[in-house]
């Protein structure tokens, strides 16, 4: 929104740094919550309550020797972390995290999200297929199947938002929610579907098939090591934060809340609280999830969520018709 290029640059850097560090915080929240469900302590030693553990893990992996197997496609192997980190950070700049208006925006930038999703998945694929071993082949195969399923669901749930808010621009959707009410109140089913398909997107239980360790070891990540592994894990964390922020933006009205329009500092705080709440819900589902049998994936992911979305669309259509 800002016309001054300098301000945009500064904000970009600030948002990028916040995004980087916040992604580790969310990993900590997830690990700690899942640990508690499992009667464990979780991260413990580094920092208060082990809060710096994910970041230290990242640093530790960076310092490890990288073992690159013979026959690795180096172009894919090197390019995949760059694509993932860059695209996700770019995508995050389009979300209204710091204030009501995102750092970057243009008309119809909801579509940017799809590019980000597609390229995140592409970076996983490139990393996975840079060396074709049985584990990576099976893991990447599962990843592609899963991507094709959740992508459709996401696309449809965003279409419903577009249908109601009448705009494919993220800042317009946020404004619509501030004027009316958060979209979760209008489209609760759509919200639930979006949260559930997040689990598939983030490869979390019960949809952690692409790297189900009991079945395919580390799946597409099997051949990664050292700094590439560190960055791929970072991409995973960023993806987690980005997706949660997206849900907060699209369904929970971003950082809007009581007094948020008067006190400008409250916006990111509200945003963070909402995001943490979603992270907790996701962690709880992770904690009670039993991994889906791979052949039942379409039955458990595609069909029920799609039909729920159809129900939501019908309800929405009837409601809008009645209103007009």
């Amino acid at each position: 929104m800002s016309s001054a290029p300098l301000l945009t640059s500064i904000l970009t850097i600030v948002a990028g740094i916040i995004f980087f560090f916040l992604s580790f915080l969310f990993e900590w929240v997830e690990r700690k919550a899942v640990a508690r469900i499992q009667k464990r302590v979780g991260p413990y030693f580094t920092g208060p309550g082990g809060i710096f553990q994910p970041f230290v893990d990242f640093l530790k992996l960076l310092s490890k020797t990288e073992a690159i197997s013979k026959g690795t496609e180096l172009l894919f192997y090197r390019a995949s972390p760059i694509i993932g980190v860059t695209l996700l950070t770019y995508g995050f700049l389009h979300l209204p995290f710091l204030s009501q208006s995102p750092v970057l925006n243009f008309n119809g930038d909801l579509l940017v999200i799809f590019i980000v999703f597609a390229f995140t998945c592409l970076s996983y694929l490139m990393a996975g297929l840079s060396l074709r071993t049985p584990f990576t082949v099976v893991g990447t195969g599962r990843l592609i199947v899963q991507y094709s399923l959740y992508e459709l669901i996401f696309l449809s749930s965003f279409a419903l938002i577009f249908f109601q808010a009448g705009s494919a621009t993220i800042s317009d959707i946020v404004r619509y929610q501030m004027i009316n009410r958060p979209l979760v109140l209008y489209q609760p089913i759509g919200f639930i579907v979006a949260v559930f398909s997040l689990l598939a997107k983030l490869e979390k239980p019960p949809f952690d098939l692409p790297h189900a360790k009991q079945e395919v070891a580390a799946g597409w990540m099997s051949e990664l090591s050292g700094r590439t592994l560190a960055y791929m894990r970072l991409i995973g964390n960023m993806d987690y934060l980005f997706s949660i922020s997206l849900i907060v933006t699209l369904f929970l009205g971003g950082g809007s809340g009581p007094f948020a329009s008067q006190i400008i500092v409250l916006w990111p705080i509200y945003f963070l609280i909402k995001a943490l709440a979603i992270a907790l819900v996701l962690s709880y589902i992770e904690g009670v999830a039993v991994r889906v049998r791979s052949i039942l994936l379409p039955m458990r992911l595609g069909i029920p969520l799609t039909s729920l979305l159809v129900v939501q669309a019908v309800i929405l259509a009837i409601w809008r018709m009645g209103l007009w």
Partner: protein
Amino acid sequence: MVEKKSSLRTWFEALENLFSSPDTLPPEEAEKAFNGSSRGIPVLVPEKCIGCSLCALSCPSQAITMVPGGKKTIGNKVVEVKNPSFDYSKCIYCGLCAQVCKQNAIEMRTDLPPIIIIKR
């Protein structure tokens, strides 16, 4: 007991655990070498040993060798005795040597620091 399918109890169990304290031992407790039930480390009390080799014969992992232990007065005679020497890298800490010893010359001690074997 498993005839009825219901997911509620598992969901509730998870929620309950989320808000209760974890079962894991605090590290200070978990890192102790011995607790009240531990068997301990076999240590020789040289004054009591008469060098009968029963411990060395019974040792399941053959971790005990008899080495010269100097002169000792048994009864009225001064004799050359052999004392057991423990190879703690072979020892399985079963405590059988202490149990077979008629003189109670081997003590299982739990007040020692854990034995750390450094490979050279």
